[in-house]
């Protein structure tokens, strides 16, 4: 059993803040297939389309039949630990600062041998394990051997916490607590053990009956005035909590159901862009540098930035056309943020929910995503180190259609399907 993580002691303000180092992140292009799958929480290896041989390390040709078609296929990761070692020396700064470090050699039932990081609950070799893929602090996939069965406090493992962004004992900002989704997110991170949850609210005159006052009663929650369309408001927030926040969850948005012809003028579209795109930009400019500076600040360091986008960011949903466009802009900006955060190891997580069950999606047919399901997906992504999340049946279906053929999806959406 993993020792449960104890609340980290208060930082001695006189001591220098550790600068973030990253594990080696160079990979060949072909190996990035492992990262692409791990970014969605999946462990996939190449499997030869001709002879079914499972490949590892990633290859350009099958090691058995030399076939060139090697699609990535999800693996169950079942295997056997055949050797283990504890490193007391490393040539790389990231690991040097974290020694001792355990590694293992796993013989996968599917065939190949894998060099893996070892979860602390994996005993000595030989023994059964289950291998999974996670993004490491540098954002590249690595393989980890876990015990076959779930054990208590597994997420508190020291090695695993280096890979993930568990909210436990961390300080979290949720940018909008006025919606049911925002309240569900605040509640979920509080339940996950966050030390402080700052919850933003923009329009105080709408507070009554919104549900935010119930959230404010939760022990770790503090309400903060925050209007993402107002640069001064964002600057003030950053001045107050910028040096403390470990996880930003940006869920604030404006969502109106219009296309181009159904509403004249730019007011609504401009407001959507101001919230959904420029709001993210304001927040990132004010809070981004502070997060980067604290990315290696002890066990509860700054660790992640979550953007709640929309599955409509992938392809325009004409009945909500301007909203889709603002979310596509936010997605593009979020990719920029991810690239800029990467050298510090801060993970940028993009969440692509299908229609959430709220008033702005009133006229969309079910299934719609319950606010609680969205919140749970966000906490799971933080805990499991997932980078792209597509919660709900609609999002999953859109993703599948989009992957299959984005042009076909565009035509289907244009035809109202």
């Amino acid at each position, binding site marked *: 059993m993993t020792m449960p993580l104890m609340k980290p002691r208060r930082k001695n303000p006189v001591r220098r803040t550790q600068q973030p180092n990253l*594990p*080696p*992140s*160079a*990979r*060949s292009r*072909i*190996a990035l297939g492992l990262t692409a799958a791990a970014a969605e929480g999946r462990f996939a290896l190449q499997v030869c389309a001709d002879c079914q041989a499972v490949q*590892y*390390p*990633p290859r350009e040709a099958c*090691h058995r039949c030399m076939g060139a078609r090697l699609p990535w296929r999800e693996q169950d990761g079942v295997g*056997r630990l*055949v*050797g*283990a*070692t*504890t*490193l*007391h*020396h*490393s*040539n*790389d700064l*990231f*690991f040097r600062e974290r020694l001792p*470090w355990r*590694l*293992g*050699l796993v*013989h996968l039932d599917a065939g190949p*041998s*894998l*060099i*893996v*990081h070892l979860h602390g609950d994996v005993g000595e*070799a*030989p023994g059964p394990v289950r291998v999974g893929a996670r993004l*490491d602090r*540098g954002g*590249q996939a*690595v393989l980890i051997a876990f015990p076959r069965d779930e054990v208590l406090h597994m997420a508190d493992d020291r090695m695993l916490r280096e890979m993930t962004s568990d909210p436990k004992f961390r300080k979290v900002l949720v940018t909008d607590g006025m919606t049911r989704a925002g309240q569900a997110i605040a509640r979920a991170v509080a339940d996950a053990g966050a030390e402080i949850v700052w919850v933003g609210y923009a329009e105080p005159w709408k507070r009554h009956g919104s549900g935010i006052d119930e959230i404010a009663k939760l022990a770790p929650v503090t309400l903060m005035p925050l209007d993402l369309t107002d640069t001064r408001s964002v600057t003030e927030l950053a001045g107050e909590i910028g040096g403390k926040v470990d996880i930003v969850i940006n869920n604030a948005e404006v969502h109106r159901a219009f296309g181009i012809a159904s509403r004249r003028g730019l007011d609504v579209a401009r407001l959507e862009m101001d919230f959904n795109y420029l709001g993210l930009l304001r927040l990132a400019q004010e809070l981004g540098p502070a997060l980067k500076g604290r990315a290696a600040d002890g066990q509860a360091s700054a660790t992640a930035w979550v953007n709640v986008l929309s599955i409509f960011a992938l392809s325009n949903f004409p009945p909500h056309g301007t909203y889709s466009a603002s979310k596509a802009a936010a997605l593009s900006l979020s990719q920029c943020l991810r690239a800029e955060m990467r050298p510090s190891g801060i993970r940028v997580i993009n969440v692509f929910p299908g229609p959430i069950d709220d008033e702005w999606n009133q006229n969309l047919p079910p299934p719609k995503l319950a606010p609680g399901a969205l919140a749970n997906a966000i906490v799971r992504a933080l805990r499991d180190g997932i980078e792209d999340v597509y919660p709900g049946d609609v999002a999953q279906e859109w993703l599948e259609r989009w992957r299959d053929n984005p042009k076909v999806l565009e035509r289907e959406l244009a035809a109202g399907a």
Partner: protein
Amino acid sequence: MTVRKGYDGVAVAVPVTVPYVRYSTHGAHWFLGQAIRRLVDEAAIAKDAIDGLTVSSFTLAPDIAVGVAQHLGLSPRWLDHIPTGGASGVMALRRAARAVQAGDASIVACVAGDTNHVDSFRLMLGSFSQFARDATYPYGSGGPNAIFALITASYMRKYGARREDFARICVDQRTNALASGSRMFKKPLTVEEYMSARPIAEPLHLFDCVMPCAGAEAFLVMSEMRARELGVRHTLLRGAIERHNAFADDPVMERGGWLVDRDDLYSMAEAQPGDIDFVQPYDDYPVIVMLQLEDLGFCGKGEGPAFVREHRFTFDGDFPSNTSGGQLSAGQAGAAGGFLGLTETIRQLTDTAGARSVKDAKLGLVSGFGMVTYDRCLCTGAVILGRPS
């Protein structure tokens, strides 16, 4: 399978060593140049007499062998670049021998050398191979120590080897190193010191690991007749094998390619393991010495630990092994580590090994092992050298 032609009439001579240093500000070309200079001086031949060249090095980039030829003003009519580290010596000798037999070259200089800057080892590890970059270096960045720790742990568990057994190999090799005047290690090693050394990658501890350094090793390959004409003391190549990526389906390495071809090796040499007077197994880690003793037929699979307990590996012991001290006690000068056993064997068989001479030695076996590109070492090879009758 076709029957191999023998290596009759191939002489291996003029072993040279550019003394090892822990770090150097020189480039690899400096060490290679010094080695070839020594070959020419000691053989008392003109530089132009070298008409074949093999080069082995890890730190030569962006150059390859032909760049060395231009750098040193050589114009060989036969050239090979053999960057296979611990297997490069055996592989270079095999290729050079065939070139000499075929008349493509008359005197081949086989040279291996590397420099070692303060940070060059770390930089090499991260880009050693595509598989290392994708699938081992991001896991703790322990380099070969981590991979061999996994192999060693598995071997210990399966075959009952203990750290005390590995200690015997390391301690005896240190005795040999001191008799050869090693520049890297000046003090004897005791079993207690070995056992109490700090852990590096468990079960490997400090004295299981070689010390990276800078240096070079080289020798000449020519026909026996040519060696006689030149009046250089020489040995004869009696047999040689190599094999790559053998037993790729073994989940963890516990045998190497020697096992596939060893019968060929001994039949070429018309000898048996019992006829060998001394061995120079590749010794990047002591467990690999045990694998070679097993796979080359000195004992059965899994009998390595017992074999080590029953024998002394010193130059004056009953099973002289790595009589120069090996890499474990002489240092690992990059690719030169793959030549160390060859230069030492030539010295032993030409009465130039001084205080560490193996008494009445007539046949020596050298084995090479190189290139940990992922979870195991890929290139294996071995040669048997003998005294001219």
